[in-house]
């Protein structure tokens, strides 16, 4: 059985019908959001991170029916920000294979919104990004990029 749902995807209202057991990840990829990647099947790698009402969630474990009435954001909807933050990552060579990058970007950009008044500390960044696995980088470049990004952002503010 399929269920009609309506949700806002990257600012645009979309109505689709989905089976009850389809996960948001498959639905979003089918709707053209190819930035959303699958890395595991056990809710543990962070590659499929998207925002639900502005909060990072694992689209591989959220049922698509539950998007009904909510705001879903993928990296496709944050392109200007992604490019700026991506530049910081690229300045450290930290994107490497890039497969975990969209999930990392989504998590970091969410973190930025959770710290409106100050730049988070390195320890806070490490903890916030704990659920974003990366096998290439050894993470240090991600941390350097994030620290630099938040510092610059804070100075501008």
């Amino acid at each position, binding site marked *: *059985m399929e*269920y009609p749902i309506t949700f806002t995807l990257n600012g645009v209202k979309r109505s689709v019908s989905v*089976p*009850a*057991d389809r*996960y948001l990840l498959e639905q979003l990829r089918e709707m053209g959001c190819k930035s959303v990647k699958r890395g595991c*099947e*056990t*809710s*543990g790698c*962070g590659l499929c*991170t998207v925002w*639900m009402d502005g*909060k*990072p*969630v*694992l689209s*591989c*474990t*959220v*049922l698509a*029916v*539950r998007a*009904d009435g909510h705001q879903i954001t993928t990296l496709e909807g944050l392109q200007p920000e992604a490019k700026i933050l991506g530049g910081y990552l690229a300045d450290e060579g930290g994107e490497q294979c890039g497969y975990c990058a969209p999930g990392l970007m989504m*998590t970091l950009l*969410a973190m930025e919104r959770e710290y409106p008044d100050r730049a988070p500390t390195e320890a806070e960044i490490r*903890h*916030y990004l*704990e*659920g*974003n696995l990366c096998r290439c980088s050894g993470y240090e470049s991600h941390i350097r990029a994030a620290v630099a990004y938040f510092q610059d952002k804070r100075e501008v503010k």
Partner: protein
Amino acid sequence: MLHILNYERPQTLEEAYQLRQKKGSAVLGGTGWLRLGEHTLRTAIDLSGLGLRYIKDEGDSFLLGAYTTLRDLETSAPLNEAFGGAFADAVGSIVGIQFRNCATLGGSLYGRFGFSDVLTLLLALDCEVHLYKEGWVPVETFAARNGEPDILTELRIYKNRRVKVLSQRLNANDFPSVTIAVSKGEDGFRSVIGARPCRAKIAAGPEKLTLSTAPDFAKKAADAVSYGNGMRGSAPYRRQLAEVLTRRAALSLLQKEAE
């Protein structure tokens, strides 16, 4: 793989309760662990339309809705101030922010998972679980039962105990090899040991402790529960960890008191 035949989003608790009486029905929590294993749900009941996500300060207690997320527990200032940061400590190693933004308090409780850091913490506190039909049930009673066809609506946590949680994991966000909680109230200390790998249990207490009797208490607590072998540790390893961590948590509470 998971199969869901029917999806329902009831508008009232009564409606949810009636759906839950159907064979093969289950309430959806955060669905983080739902996809693991091969199973079919005839009716998946989504309570997200019922306003069950809240943390209310009621003076001598907190009232938490079943759909409060683990991330809410982690970031709630009043909750963490009242319990010395124990909620942030207990959930902070669970997978990652994204997971905790979905996983619910009700799901963690109702699942009664052996590995649950949340259940371990709550057993150390004085809490009651509210079931729609049955009413209030002490968390200890609830934790020992299985799969009642009722709707878990909220949890009351009394502010009468101070608590310390500790765990050991193969790596930072793995399931625990052992997770423990020690709390102190007027009646003395209580020890809870979880991830043995079986479900958490009150292991010892209430008992009055001093710095010098805490080690014996930890030993007694560790000896009081059984342990099993698994990928996250052998039984002797788990037992030894349980004792060390219980002692440390008890001492930490005693030392804080002295300060």
